[in-house]
């Protein structure tokens, strides 16, 4: 336990306060409910707690035990040791939000570094200090677009190839609002072209949102779609996997107004889903409409360069009910980790890792496509994920793969009625040629018995 008080300390302090027992400090609490017996197991020592947690963790099979071909928004990548080493520094780990800039320059400058790298990687002009994850960053893009038109445009067009969980999150965020979401409903071909969305864009459209690479791994040039959106006065937002941008044209070049994304691929552990990192970048002209924290450069009283949280007048603690969002945190530590990761890989490494993912995925796709009964459906360029039509239900195949210690791909039938027996396979730099060949040979052996 981490309470340092000795009996003697406690006596002295109670005396100074003017009470005999600690209980006397709680007289405002209704006596009928005070000091309940909590049904929680008794305390463990650190030694016991570690053993207990180790035991629970061993009921999981991790991607260290299994060969992972599962992606769908979270990816198994290599992270240099330097990333965790910096994350563990107590000066970063145990600091609060940098409201006092004189004693928070470390956090503030790291955020500024992060904003610089995210803006550069996405090809945008400004980035905020991050949101919770890719899904909530996408939802904040919807809110920002709606607010940008002062509520006068209420239609939001979502691509059916935007991550299903992001679309669900956007639906939750817009519950009870007048925002009308179109484009993603049943019956619309989830693997159609992005230009199919143009027919949904009207004068009442605030935002069009697509994903790049999309949920099925495909990469498209969104310039035409962006032009169509802009012609109707709408904004376009592109949700991206930042790791792919070591290789691919940044979405800023497609004239995106907003770029969001899941930053997990930039050096964050899978950790069963979180904490991850929500990227959010935009154009300078929208900076005051953007939610979330921002670090800005300034000088101190001696003219020395320093950094502060800026444009705080948009934020909840100043604007209260008129704020752009209720957000009160960013993903500080995860943003820091991604900044260390991007610094460690740098210009050369970011390109190399993206290219490795691309090459290995394409090799896997070719091998799988050559199997009888398996068809790779990506006929357009893709990054590191692709869709496979399988001869059997995906959960059956994945069971067989698991027996060979392979974590199979994502079952697309869970989210798309038209994609029963379709698997989404992700390949990263972590998968060796041997791994891929084991996957292919196991798939070949799967039968329906």
């Amino acid at each position, binding site marked *: 336990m*981490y309470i*340092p*008080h000795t009996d003697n300390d406690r006596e002295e*302090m109670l005396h100074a*306060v*003017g009470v005999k027992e600690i209980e006397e*400090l709680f007289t*405002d609490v209704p006596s009928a409910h005070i*000091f309940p017996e909590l049904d929680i197991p*008794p305390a*463990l020592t650190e030694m016991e*707690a570690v053993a207990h947690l180790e035991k629970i963790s061993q009921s999981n099979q*991790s991607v260290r035990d299994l060969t992972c071909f599962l992606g769908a928004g979270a990816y*198994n990548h290599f992270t*240099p040791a330097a990333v965790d*080493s910096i994350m563990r520094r*107590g*000066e970063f*780990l145990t*600091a*609060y939000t940098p409201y006092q800039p004189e004693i*928070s320059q470390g956090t503030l400058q790291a955020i*500024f570094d992060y*904003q*610089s790298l995210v803006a550069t990687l996405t090809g945008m002009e*400004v980035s905020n200090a991050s949101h919770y*994850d890719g899904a909530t960053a996408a939802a904040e893009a919807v809110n920002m677009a709606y607010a940008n038109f002062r509520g006068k445009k209420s239609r939001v067009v979502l691509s059916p190839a935007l991550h299903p969980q992001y679309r*669900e*999150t956007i*639906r939750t965020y817009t*519950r*009870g*609002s007048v925002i009308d979401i179109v484009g993603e409903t049943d019956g619309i071909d989830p693997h159609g072209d992005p230009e199919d969305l143009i027919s949904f864009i009207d004068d009442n459209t605030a935002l069009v949102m697509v994903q790049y690479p999309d949920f099925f791994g495909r990469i498209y*040039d969104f310039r035409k779609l962006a032009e169509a959106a802009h012609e109707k006065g709408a904004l376009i937002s592109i949700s991206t996997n930042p790791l792919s941008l070591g290789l691919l*044209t940044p979405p800023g070049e497609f004239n995106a107004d907003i770029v969001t994304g899941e930053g997990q691929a930039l050096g964050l552990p899978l*950790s069963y889903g*979180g904490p991850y990192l929500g990227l959010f970048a935009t154009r300078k002209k929208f900076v005051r409409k953007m939610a979330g924290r921002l670090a*800005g450069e*300034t000088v*101190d009283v*001696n003219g020395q360069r320093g950094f502060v949280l*800026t444009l705080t007048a948009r934020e909840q*603690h100043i604007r209260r*009910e008129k704020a752009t969002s209720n957000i009160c*945190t960013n*993903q500080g*530590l*995860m943003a820091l980790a991604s900044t260390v990761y991007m610094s460690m*890989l*740098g*210009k*050369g*490494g970011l*390109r190399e890792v993206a290219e*490795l993912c691309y*090459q*290995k995925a394409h*090799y896997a796709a070719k091998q799988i496509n050559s199997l009888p009964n398996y068809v790779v459906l990506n006929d357009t360029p893709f990054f590191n994920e692709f869709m496979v039509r399988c001869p059997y239900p995906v959960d059956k195949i994945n069971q067989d793969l*698991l027996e060979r210690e392979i974590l199979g791909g994502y079952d697309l039938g869970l989210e798309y009625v038209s994609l029963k027996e379709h698997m989404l396979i992700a390949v990263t*730099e972590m998968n060796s040629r041997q791994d891929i060949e084991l996957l292919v040979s196991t798939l070949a052996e799967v039968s329906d018995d």
Partner: protein
Amino acid sequence: MTEPLLCELSVPDRRATRFPEADVPKSELPTGFLRDDLPMPELSELDVIRHFTRLSQLNYSIDSGMYPLGSCTMKYNPKVNEETARLAGFSAVHPLQPISTVQGSLELMYTLQEYLGEIGGFASVSLQPAAGAHGEFTGLLIILAYHNANGETKRDKILVPDSAHGTNPATSSMSGLKVVELKSDARGNIDLEALRAECNDTLVGLMFTNPNTLGLFDENVEEVIRLVHEAGGLVYGDGANMNALLGVVRPGDLGFDVMHYNLHKTFSTPHGGGGPGSGPVGVAAHLVDYLPDPVVGCNPIPKSEIKGGDEKTDIYHFIHPPKSIGRVKSFNGHFAMMVRAYTYIRMYGPDGLRKIAEHAVLNANYLYSQLRDAYHIPYDRVCMHEFVVEGRWPDVPDIHALDISKRMMDYGLHPPTNYFPLIVHESLMIEPTETESKQTLDAFVESMLNIAEEAHNSPELLQNAPYTTPIGRLDEVKAAKELVLCCDVGAYFSNQE
């Protein structure tokens, strides 16, 4: 000497991380989709380590000193939590793995849901929300969904006391609600007359922070809740101040319908320089069906169905609540934060949890008793885990809470929360937490008494403070006016090509 930016440190062709050559035949790259340039830093590993180490040394942190930041509960973040969260069985698990391969994760989540429910007195808990404000938003959506399901669609008004947390009004308007501020009475409680006047059939509910941001436990808590319930409204509890209540009283027992927990405050997960947090939401029985998707469940399986001598009779799985408000984020919440909070709860046990609250409250009252002669305390009552003093004196009108805060840095202290709550002039909100020793508190008191004396004898000392920090007072107006938000990458990289 300031630390250069990453882009300023970059040197063409320098490398840190290298990857193996591709072991597969190469495919053609997607022409037309290749980026022209990638102006990212080029550094050695030592460059990177030194840069971030030097930056870290410019930070104040709990590990380096006392952090009496009111309503933020800056307690010690145990190191063991960092180890358990990094066990490969937890940290290297993909969120979409088959249920059979993640029974450990689900067991931990299920058990943590149960513990939090027990601690708060709630029927069910969702671990999904990513932070406190996210939990508030989730809680309000649950309340609105409940009213809608009961055909109560004209309810559109939410009450927020003036002593509530700053995020409450923003959350309410984000949820499309009309915010009505409730005044506090002379003792710092919710003004019952003001409350009665608003209790009618347009009432959605009340966002109730108790203890409030004055650090006071509302003396009429049960009456407040009864009035809201009588009008058909629900009561949302802001659990940011839960550290005062662990093992002392369960908000669910007092009638709160929904509450969020801050794992990053009460349950010791690190603040990380502003996140990630974790804001689970607990609900009373009538709201269980509305929780965000998914919740973890545990079903006993009949022995007859167990294959191959597997002794395990419980299986953990995801439940999709029937009237769920939907998903509030991707995947399964901030799982690594749950591992830390779970470790923490197991190490304290039920008696230890009560001791946390008792010592947090004792520490606050001790500081209160030592500072009350030198600083004006507007609500003079026994406080809970925090209290608010005025950072001003009538005889030195030019000294403000900000000046005191800046001077505290010279004493090696992090300032308290200042200018919040808004109902106290020049407020300084002080929360010591239970992990500070009497010796640390005494040193804090001595510094605060010195500063009070300096304010009277040499006020310019405060007005020009801090003197000992890595950087002086910063020009925030310039930052907002010029808006330099990222390094001018072009200036560093394009010339180097």
